[in-house]
Structures are given as C-alpha cells and as structure tokens.
C-alpha cells in the first residue's frame, strides 16, 4: 500500500530508501564521517547510524558553513542519502550541499511525524512532483 503527502521541492530529482529519522539537527562538518556516512557524534540521537542510501528525515543543519562540502563529500564517496527531507524549512547549508550533489531535497511535508513514524520505513521522495510516499507501512 502506498500513501503520499505533499511537500516543497528544494532540489529536484527522486530517491528511494529506508527512512533515517531524527528530531535533532546535524552539524555536517563535525558529526558525520564522510567516508561512510556514519553519524560519529556520540551525543547525537542517531549516533552509529549511516545516512548512506537512506532517506534522511531531520530538522536541518546547524553549525559550520562548510557542512555543504561535507554533503558533497558524501556524494563523491558514494555514502550520500538517497534523498533528504527537512521537517522544518530547509536551511542554506543543506540546500546548497544537495544542489551541487544532485541529492533530491524536499522540506515541510504535511504531518511528517504522523506519516513517517519510525526509521526503517521505506520512503520515496519525488521532489519534482512535490511528493513524499511511504511504500511499505509494515515495518
């Protein structure tokens, strides 16, 4: 069963992957290992998880302005998320990093916490159609 909700398109394209969900913001320069996509900050809610191939659902980036390059490094190292959903308004670091990395980016989905409840749910982001779809709700 597929259910879809509307969102805003920031960077076009589409991607599919398992949701990686966090309510905490990310400093891409200091909190993520750009070689493998693993969140390396021990204090972060999703410490130890990898963004590689996932649909990252998070509020936005904080801290260093160089975080945009870290997102690009993830892409070059084949460790980037399949797509990113910002639960709040997308920030400049995430938007610019995704723009040069061709990572589909959407933001402000309607009722995100109700819709994507847990990490691991399969999520499809179709930025061009401004849609986020959950294709498997059984997880």
């Amino acid at each position, binding site marked *: 069963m597929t259910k879809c909700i509307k969102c*805003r*398109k*920031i*960077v076009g394209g589409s991607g599919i992957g398992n949701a990686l969900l966090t309510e905490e*913001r990310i*400093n891409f*320069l*200091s*909190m993520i290992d*750009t070689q493998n996509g693993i969140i390396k*900050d021990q*204090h972060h809610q999703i410490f130890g998880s990898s963004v590689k191939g996932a649909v990252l659902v998070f*509020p*936005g*980036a*904080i*801290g*260093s*302005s*160089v*975080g*945009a*390059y*870290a997102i*690009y*490094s993830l*892409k*070059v*190292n084949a460790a980037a998320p399949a797509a990113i959903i910002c639960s*709040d*308004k*997308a*920030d*400049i*670091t*995430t*938007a*610019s*990093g*995704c*723009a*040069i990395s*061709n990572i589909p*980016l959407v*933001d402000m989905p309607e009722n995100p916490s109700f819709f994507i409840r847990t990490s691991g749910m399969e999520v499809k982001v179709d930025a061009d159609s401004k849609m986020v779809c959950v294709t498997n709700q059984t997880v």
Partner: protein
Amino acid sequence: MLKGESGESLAVAYRILLAIGEATEAERLIPVKWAHISGVNYNTIGDSGVDFLEQISKSAKVAIRTTINPMGFEENKSTNLSESFIKKQMSIVKSYRMLGTTTSFTCIPYEIFDIPEKGSAVSFAESNAAVFSNSILGLLTNRESALSALASSITGKSPYSNLMMEEFRHAKLAIKPDYELVTELDYGVLGYFAGKTVSDSCVEFNASEEKLDTMKAKALSAAIGTSGSCGMFTQGEGAQQEVVTCGKEEVIAVKDELNTAEDGDLIALGSPQLGLNELHLLAGLIEGKRLKKRCIIFCARAIHNQATNLGLTDRIEHAGGEFMCDSCTCLTPLITRTDYDSVITNSIKAAYYLNHSNRIDVSLKDLKTILKEYADYN
C-alpha cells in the same frame, strides 16, 4: 560533475542560488557588495572539495570583493605536516587565487577590511562573521554556506530573504542570562546555549552589557554559530513573548559538554582569530612574564603585520607566545592527538571542534585566568 567549460561554473552557481532561494522563499536575487567564503582549510573540505574548487576555478571569476577563511597552516613556517596535506592545501589556495579572491586567510574580515555602510547586503559564510556582521555592524547577510557564498561571489548576487529583510531581524525569543557575565568565556557559554535553544534566525539577549566590547561580541557570535543556525542577535529589554532563562544549571551543562579536562599541555588562542585589541590586551597581561606552556596564537597576517609595527608581537614572543598566521584552531592539522592530550583555550568554538573533529580534550578558561595560571614573572 563540472567540466570546466565556460558557462558551466556560472550554471552551478545559479543552481546553488536557486536551491537556497527556494529554501528561504526568496522572490528575487539582489546585488551583494562583499562575499566571504569558508572552506579553505583542507581539513574542512577534503579531496572532493579540492577537486571541486580546481574545476570551478578554471572557468569562474569572482564578480565582487571576496575574502576567504583561514587555511590549515602558515606557509613557510616549519611544521611537521605531511607533504600530501601541504600539496592539497596549496591546490586549494591556487584555486582561490585563480577565482580572483583576496587571499586574506581570516575568519574576522570585519576587523580587517573597510566595512560597507550599515544596511548593505553582503554574503558571509563563516558563521562567526555572519552573526557578528548582522548583530554588531548592521550589515545584512544570511547564514550562508561555503557554497552559497561562493555562488554569490561569482554572480555578485544573493537571494533576498530571511535576514536580508527587516521583518526577520527582530527576535521572537529572548534569552535572559541569570548568572554574572564577566569574561569572554561567559559570553561564549551564553552563545552556545542560545544557538542550541533558538531555531529562528534572530535572538535577543536581555540584561547583557549595553555595548559589548569586540572580544565579547566575537566570543558570543562564534559560539552562536557553532551550536545552531541562528544568524543574528539583538540586545534589549527582552520584551518578547517567549523568554528562556540561561541560569547556572544551563551554564554547567554547557561546561560539562565542552570542558573535558582540568588542565592541558598547550594553550591555543584564536577561534575566531585574535584581533588587534586582543593582542594589545594579551601583550599587557604577559608583560614581564614567561609562559609556562607552549602557547599558539592564531591570527590573520594583516593583523600580525600591524601588531608587529606596533611592537606587540615582540612583546608577546618575548614572553614565549608563538604566532601562527593564516590559520585558526578550528580543524587545525597543527594540534593532533599524537602530540597533545588536552588543550587550554578561552574559545567555545575552538573547544567544540577540538573535541569533535580533532578528538582532543579541552580545558576552558578565560584569557585572564589562563595568563594568571600559566605565566610567571621572570
């Protein structure tokens, strides 16, 4: 991704501006007078950044005054850095030269270059510079990323949104400090708490000093930039609907997180890099004394030159201080776990990145305390 053909880099720049324009709901681009770019230190952008800059610099030129952040080391000063690091770092420098930037290697452009008139739109990456410029100088800039400021430098434009607009420059939330704010470190702690607490672009501080001196304003700006996404602070009555108190408990929580050692093997000063007023203060505090620990002072070359003319560098070096120009504590390759277990600093931003990126313990102390504890009379 980039082929280095003419027009290609301009297309990349506009792709970036389009994305951040969408994100911030801008309806148009406006001209900006000055771009300040981060992403110069090899440790911050890595191999993919080196390649990206090499490609884009083949066909792009900056259209406006563009200054750049510190790099990883001071050229011509002997260090134990690997040849590979130096080669990659110098490739980055070459790319920025080809782009036509002013190779200022500073994170405090606001203390070096002449400041456009109040209300001028600029595009500043480097979070401390963005926060300081909005809050203290009355310039208008969003918290730009390394890439969006680069895009603005090439096009001369930035989206008209968020902190560029008057309506976003008024805080909805005020933070009321409920502890004595005396030193620059006290302000750093407040800024770190504020960055974590606020998700808006602007925050107000209630009951802080009427006019902050530059040293405190820098500490506050850098700490806000480190922990959050907020790009501006105001000082006032705190008449906002929402008021959050930063009391002793909150201060302890910040210190518990960042102050991971009692003591250290090295003193690192400068994140942001030290300005002339801080060098004056430092020279005065260590007059006639001798530092008991190695002390690296990160500063911009332009400031170092001025300080030398004023006799300040001699006085500081006489007491044992070492200058490192063109670089900064943040993600520095010069301070490694192999050489140091822990570092003493007065900077919240330095503490955060030494902890997280260099994985070194930090002992946080304000400048006066550092010199009281670690400098003796001859």
